[in-house]
Structures are given as structure tokens and as C-alpha cells.
């Protein structure tokens, strides 16, 4: 298994669920450690199941704080390009926060991590058509939210 590839995928998953980079890193590492200590013959998509449960536990402990790296490096004044990308990131994180949980899940899995529909079916317990429908609804809702927040990419 390509640990590096899955590390990035699980990190992105946690990041979009929690909204904090540091917490996402911690949860990513915790996910891998739990996976390795369980039956290692489980498929890689089991990583998502572990990550999802950890994110839910983390969410219940603390309300997610939408921060980015500039929040932890207050002494540095970001340049104009960095500021713009921070704003974009905050806009998207805000939009994600407004989406229903189920739609956010498939949006991250399908659009961010490029997971196959088959894997998403197993992870979510939905049929293939239900996954396609939910992906479509999630994408349309995100586009609508980004449009409202005048996101220009």
C-alpha cells in the first residue's frame, strides 16, 4: 500500500471534516496507527471508516474552528497572493460547513480524493445510483454556496 498516497487522502478528508490543519494531521496519524493495529488485511478504504469515526469524536469534543496556517503564524504578514488563497480557502471551508453531512462526505470522497463510486458505495452503504445522485446534489449545492459567496477561483 502506498502510505504516502493514503496519508494525503486521509489528511484531506480530515481537514475538510474538521477544518483545522493541526488537528487533521493528528487524526490522520491516529487513523493509520489504529488501522495498523487492527487486522491489516482490511481494505484501504477502511482507513476512511476509522478517520470518519475519529472526526465525529473530535467534532463532538470541540466545535471545529475554521483556521488556516496563517492563524498559527500570526507574526508573519502574508503577501497578497497568500492572502487571496487564504480567503479562497476560508470561503470553501465555510461553504463546506454549511453543507449537509452526507453531501459533504461524498463531495470530499469523490471530488477531492477521487475515490471510485464502488468504494463510496461500500463506505456510505448507498447504491451506485444513490451515490451518483448525491454527488450531483453535493456539487450543485457547493457551486451555489460558492456563487453566493462570490467565489471567483
Amino acid at each position: 500500500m502506498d502510505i504516502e498516497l493514503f496519508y494525503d487522502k486521509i489528511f484531506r478528508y480530515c481537514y475538510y471534516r474538521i477544518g483545522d490543519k493541526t488537528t487533521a494531521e493528528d487524526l490522520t496519524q491516529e487513523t493509520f496507527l489504529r488501522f495498523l493495529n487492527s487486522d491489516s488485511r482490511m481494505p484501504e478504504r477502511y482507513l476512511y471508516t476509522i478517520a470518519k469515526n475519529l472526526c465525529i469524536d473530535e467534532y463532538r469534543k470541540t466545535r471545529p474552528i475554521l483556521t488556516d496556517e496563517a492563524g498559527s503564524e500570526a507574526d508573519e504578514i502574508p503577501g497578497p497572493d497568500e492572502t487571496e488563497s487564504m480567503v479562497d480557502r476560508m470561503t470553501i471551508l465555510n461553504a463546506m460547513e454549511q453543507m449537509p453531512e452526507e453531501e459533504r462526505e461524498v463531495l470530499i470522497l469523490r471530488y477531492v480524493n477521487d475515490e471510485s463510486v464502488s468504494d463510496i458505495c461500500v463506505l456510505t452503504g448507498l447504491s451506485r445510483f444513490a451515490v451518483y445522485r448525491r454527488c450531483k446534489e453535493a456539487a450543485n449545492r457547493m457551486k451555489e454556496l460558492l456563487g453566493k459567496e462570490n467565489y471567483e477561483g
Partner: protein
Amino acid sequence: MKDKELKMILKDACDVPDPVIKDSFIRKVNGMQSAGSISPMQSARSMSPVRVLAVEMHYIRKRVWAFSILAIAVMLITVSRLGEDMILHISDMMPLLAGLGMIEVMRAGMHDMSELEAVTLISAKGALFARMTVIGFGHLLAVAVTAAALAGYGGYSVIGTGLKLIIPYLITTISCMEVERTGFGRENTWSCMAVAVLVIVIREIIYSTGIVILSGVAVPALIVAALAGLQAAELKKTIRLEEYAWN
């Protein structure tokens, strides 16, 4: 905003993990695996392409292979008995082979087995592609053998003969893939054979008018190239059938 743009925006907006922390963790995990304190990570079970082809070859019914061999035998016997129009008459067998092949390829979808295939080790796309590859190569062999025999008996060009035999085959497979995407095609297994018969009838009608289309090698080659492009487009649509149907 298109889906592709949304995808790019979401991926770009995601923060990246700290490379130092990430590398350190990965090295730590590798170290723990080497020390045996945790089990080594194994990839999920997967099948090699050769095994996939072997599985799909086993899945294809033996009667299909029997008919294909019978068709080759008939074509070879006919070669020695027919006159100058032997290519045209023998090419009537090709739509039938193609129709039978397409029934076999689409059998999983027709009998609602494709959903089950989707959750097995082989993806539905992989299974479909493997079946088409197995049947396609089998029939390509039939074409090659027949073209060689025709060239031997009639003094024709092997390539030109082969191209003329492939044209009705490709027309049939393309048409069958279109028909199979309709409700009627899905519910009626033998609709592919109806398509094959229609191709034969049309071919005979064109022949009876005396119009000579397939002379030489260049024209058939161009036609085959165009049909191959269409076939690739149909294959892409069929493989993405679920998204296509949904949209």
C-alpha cells in the same frame, strides 16, 4: 461552474500536510513494521490482468466458442467452393459472429449481474473490458484465418480481405452497443442477433444494386479506421453507462 473546475478548486483549497511531520510519521511506521511491532501494510486483494482475462474467458459460454469455430469451418469450406464473390458471401458470417459476441459481452448487464460484478474484486468496467478483449481477440483470429485462406485460394490481398471482413463486424458491434443501451435492447437478449441480420440484409441490398464501395485496400482501411473510432466512442459510453444513463 463545471464539475472539473469545482474539483480543481476543492483540491487547491485543501491545505497540505506538513512535509516534515508526514515524512517523520511514515518513517516511524516503516520502522515499526520492520521491527515487527505492527503488522506490515498489505494491499487489498486484487487480481492481475491475466487472471481477469482468464476468469472472463471461463465466464463466456462454451457454445459461443463452438459457434465461432463452426463459423470459421464454414467460411473455410465455403472459400474453396465459391467464386469471385466469396469475400462478400463469407462476410455475411461476420455480423452473426459479432452479434453473438455482443450478447455474451452484455450478458451481465442484461441479466442485472453488473451490480454484483461492481462489488467484486473485478470492477464492472474491468469485467466488461476483459470480456470484450477475449471475444474480440477470438474473432480477430477467425478473421485472420479466413483472410489468409481467401488470399491463398483467390489470390486476394490478405490485408484487404481482412479489412473487408472486419467492416460488417464493426458495424454490427457498434449498432449492438447502441441497441443494448435502450430498454428494449436490455430486456431482449437476442436484439443483437436482430441487428446482425439487419446488417446482413442491408449489405445484400447494397451488393445487389451493383455499387462497388470496397475496392482496393485504401478505402476499406479508411472505413475501418473510422469505424474503430466510433467503436472506441461507443465503448467509452458503455463503460460509463451508469453516469451516462443518470445524466
